[in-house]
């Protein structure tokens, strides 16, 4: 990104639409974001990979090995004393559900191509966290990439004790280990639960056990032939 945006000269030289849009974006930076990014750059340097504006919120992607350092910087130079949450995300598109008969037609159809959100991602898993300042009233979302083969990242508990439960939840839901966490154990799920429910390849079990009721419960209007309505399902149990 060029530091010195010159809106006067830029449109004449580059009449393409995309270029103009980019100039317009640079010309109206959020002063709070600028301030936060300046402080982050001074404290972290190379560890800041990418930053983006997500509907007015600042999202910064940082290098995975700097994750604990990021928490220290957030609490120190960024003055973010308040931990809002720590969570995980799985960017893999969910596999198509069912095999026709039991397909859950009620669920929204998501795109099958993998795209990464604000500030990008290096792979399937990411951990993201939101911290805020109760004094300066600003907030920032940090993201970091997590290796899919051995998902692990540093724990924030030494800096923000409130990260304890959030990380336990993230660990059981995504299988991402938090190195240095005092006791990674199940939070919501039973102790013998297997699998990581929030991963995209973990199906919504209710749909696997029983077809979506909307498919089988369709009843015809009085006078209509019931066979025409129930076609394609394993209906007919009524008779």
């Amino acid at each position, binding site marked *: 990104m060029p530091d010195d945006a010159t809106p006067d000269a830029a449109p004449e030289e580059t009449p393409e639409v995309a270029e103009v849009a980019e100039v317009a974006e640079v010309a109206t930076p959020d002063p709070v974001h600028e301030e936060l990014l300046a402080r982050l750059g001074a404290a972290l340097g190379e560890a800041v990979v990418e930053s983006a504006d997500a509907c007015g919120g600042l999202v910064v992607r940082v290098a995975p090995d700097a994750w604990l350092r990021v928490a220290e910087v957030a609490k120190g130079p960024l003055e973010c004393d308040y931990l809002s949450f720590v969570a995980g995300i799985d960017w893999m598109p969910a596999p198509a559900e069912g095999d026709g008969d039991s397909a859950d037609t009620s669920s929204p159809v998501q795109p099958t191509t993998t795209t990464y959100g604000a500030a990008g991602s290096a792979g399937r898993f990411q951990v993201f966290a939101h911290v805020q300042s109760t004094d300066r009233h600003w*907030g920032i979302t940090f993201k970091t990439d997590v290796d899919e083969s051995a998902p692990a990242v540093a724990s924030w508990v030494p800096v923000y004790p409130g990260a304890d439960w959030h990380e336990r939840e993230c660990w059981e839901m995504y299988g991402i280990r938090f190195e240095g966490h005092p006791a990674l154990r199940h939070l*919501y799920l039973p102790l013998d639960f297997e699998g990581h429910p929030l991963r995209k390849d973990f199906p919504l079990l209710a749909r696997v056990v029983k077809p979506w009721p909307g498919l089988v419960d369709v009843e015809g209007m009085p006078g209509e032939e019931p066979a025409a309505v129930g076609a394609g399902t394993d209906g007919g149990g009524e008779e």
Partner: protein
Amino acid sequence: MSTTESPANAPGFEVDRDAIRHLADAQINVELDTGDMIINLGPQHPATHGTLRLVVRLDGERVLAADPVIGYMHRGYEKLTEFRTYPQITTLINRIDWLSSFANEVPFVDAAERLMGVEAPPRAAYIRTILTELSRIATFVLFLGEMGLQLGALTPAFYGFRDREHVLNLIEGATGGRFHPNFNRIGGLKDDLPWGWIAETRSVMSKILTACDTFEDLVAGNEIFLSRTRGIGVIPGEIGAAYGVSGSNLRASGVDWDLRRDGRPYLAYPEIDFQVWTHPDGDSFSRYWVRLQETRESVRMVLQLLDGLPAGPVMAKVPRIIKVPEGEVWAETENPLGQMGYYVVSKGATGPFRVKIRSASFSNVSILPWLLKGVYVPDVVTILASLYFILGDIDR
């Protein structure tokens, strides 16, 4: 045993009181010298509105360690949201904090609207603000009464339920649902306010102010209440913030932070005048006191909003099938229990790709292991009650 027939009653018998005392001491030492004791508080307990289990390690009456066990009511909303469309999700999230369901809907609808670039009309924003504040009043009025109940005072709880009912009637009158309004739509509201509702709201607000005075006399001014809550369960502001404790709990620790004033401007809050109440002590009493003041403040806000209620439609123009463009957004609001937020990631479909639900009670309760260390068993109940959490808001 024959010794229970005390010879002390016999005339002229001298009791060796020292010997009896030594005997009693010896027996106490024998019986209690059993080390620490681990006790389950819950899963069912009157101090909780659901099933929170607290495993406490006790040394006599003192808590050495406490470990909350949650998840008895985990409904997997974060997974479910990935299988539902945006309009369906407001029904789900109604059930997170069920005492202030309307307020739960607001940040989610806000997130979807911001991604879509839709803005609710001013009248809708005002009505949303009014109903959010009514939710707050309903939640807090119940708390103001119930907090007494946890300390053994039955009377205020009845007042709490009675006065909350007035507010729930208002919410039901406007939305059709006492607890689960599901009244928000992306782009506005399902309906306008019914005829006569505004006048009714004004009269209920004066009842709430009277109720606040009653609670101040009955509970906050009660000597027993004061001695049971002052200096008990103190949360220093910076520790509370690092644990993610928010809302009135954090303001009662002297942190002057309220998203209605300090967050990204939302609803009609920038247009009204209100005070943010804080208390420097951070103990159970100050959490009660702050909520008492905030209830009065909410009444003031509702009256202002009713005065300034603009005319016009309550629904913006939105497509019949809601598709939210690709992007992500963090939307947060100041809910009755604290900061409620949704991190919504959309990939352009009719439903979200990922929704991180940040609920207030989850973080508010996560401080318990730290907070309960060293307190006495009866104070555990006081502290739980003063933190004021909803189990659905912890377990989601």
